[in-house]
């Protein structure tokens, strides 16, 4: 089980980030601004995944890399949703992103002795789920011109929604689980986390692919 976990976490899933990056490069000239935001986020994830994999392979703590990821990740995703949601949601999303930044800085000191800063991840997950639901509700209010599957944003939104919803519980009880004895089920939880992350990358790649001139 631990070998499967290491294989997925160190090699397979980090490589999956190349799928949306390649799709983004192929469709780059057709990408709209929100999609370019996600494309650059994928490039950032690739760098973080690369560094994280090397650290994991050498049993080095990846807390700093995870912290940097957390600091950049949510504001960029918020920027994506600012661009695709109605104007009336811009100010609330900006406020949420600013509060997150302040909370992240505070948590940096609160959880400085913890193996991972969990509170911002939970905050991030809850608000990304909220953004996703608001976007889906918005789509039901407007007169859509094309099928659901032809809209790039639907795929990307679904990817984020599935990933954060699936991993929210795990991160909520993460500290508690860490205090307990490590066992196979804990590794299964991480494998599920990795698989949903891989699914996120695939859905983003599909979203890029749906872009047409």
């Amino acid at each position, binding site marked *: 089980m631990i070998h499967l976990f290491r294989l997925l976490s160190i090699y397979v899933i980090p490589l999956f980030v190349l799928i949306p990056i390649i799709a983004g490069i192929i469709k780059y000239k057709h990408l709209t601004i929100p999609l370019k935001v996600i494309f650059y986020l994928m490039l950032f994830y690739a760098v973080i995944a690369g560094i994280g994999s090397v650290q994991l392979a050498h049993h080095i703590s990846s807390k700093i890399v995870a912290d940097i990821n957390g600091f950049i990740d949510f504001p960029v995703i918020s920027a994506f949703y600012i661009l695709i949601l109605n104007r009336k949601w811009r100010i609330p999303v900006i406020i949420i992103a600013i509060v997150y930044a302040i909370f992240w800085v505070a948590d940096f000191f609160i959880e400085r002795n913890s193996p991972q800063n969990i509170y911002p991840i939970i905050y991030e997950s809850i608000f990304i789920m909220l953004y996703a639901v608001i976007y889906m509700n918005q789509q039901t209010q407007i007169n859509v011109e094309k099928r659901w599957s032809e809209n790039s944003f639907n795929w990307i939104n679904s990817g984020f929604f599935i990933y954060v919803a*699936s991993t929210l519980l795990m991160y909520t009880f993460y500290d508690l689980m860490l205090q307990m004895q490590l066992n196979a*089920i804990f590794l299964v939880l991480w494998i599920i986390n990795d698989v949903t992350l891989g699914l996120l990358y695939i859905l983003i790649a599909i979203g890029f692919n749906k872009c047409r001139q």
Partner: protein
Amino acid sequence: MQAVTENIYILVLLGMIGMMLLVVAFILINSRGQNKMLRQRQQMQQAELAHQKELLHTVIDSQEAERKRIGQDLHDDVGTALSSLRMTIEMLHAGQGAAEEEKYVSLSKDIIDKVIKDVRHISHNLSPPVLSYYGLVAAIEEKCAFINQSGQLKIELIDEAGQALHQPAFEVLLAFYRVLEELINNTIKHAGATKVVIKFNADDTAGIVIGYTDNGKGISKKLQKKGMGLQNIESRLAVVGADYQIAQEGEGFNMTIRYQPVLVG
């Protein structure tokens, strides 16, 4: 302790799987709903397009029918009269007596008078002069007076609109005139009615309201949708921005036309 540990892990595992399935189901339901709405909108748009095409065909068919009628009138009345006139003039030749000459001149004048009358009648049908000089109510009054003379149908005209009917543009009044003309023709041809009431009303909220009622046998729902005459009426009213309603209850035929004048200011 081991059992508690494993319980928490299992609960979290089940929770993660449950959340994933819930979100996936939510997304699938949402996508199906959107696709269904899109399909319904497309179907409505296609139906509207088909309806507009049908209306256009009706307009073209009506125009052709009108041209055919005018052509026939010109041929049967004016053409025949002019041919008779030519023959009459040919009979005039030098050397005939004054009485003979007088006879042919008088006959020629009668034929010319008939031609003038026929041309006036055709021209009147094309564009009634009373409408442009005296307005809609006067034009309809003239038409009603002509029909009332026959004795088979009595048309009553009630005008409570006052000056409001002089405000719309000529094209709008012409459209109303043609619509009422069509309704009267339909009543004469199909309804078997003995009485028609045409009422003109106007106020600030409803705009101009024209009511048409006859005591005939009414109109079936099928004819409401397919009848060329009603399609003609619909397209004429749509062009000027008026709408109409056909009442279903009661006997006979009842139509209300509403028009809100456009304020230019």
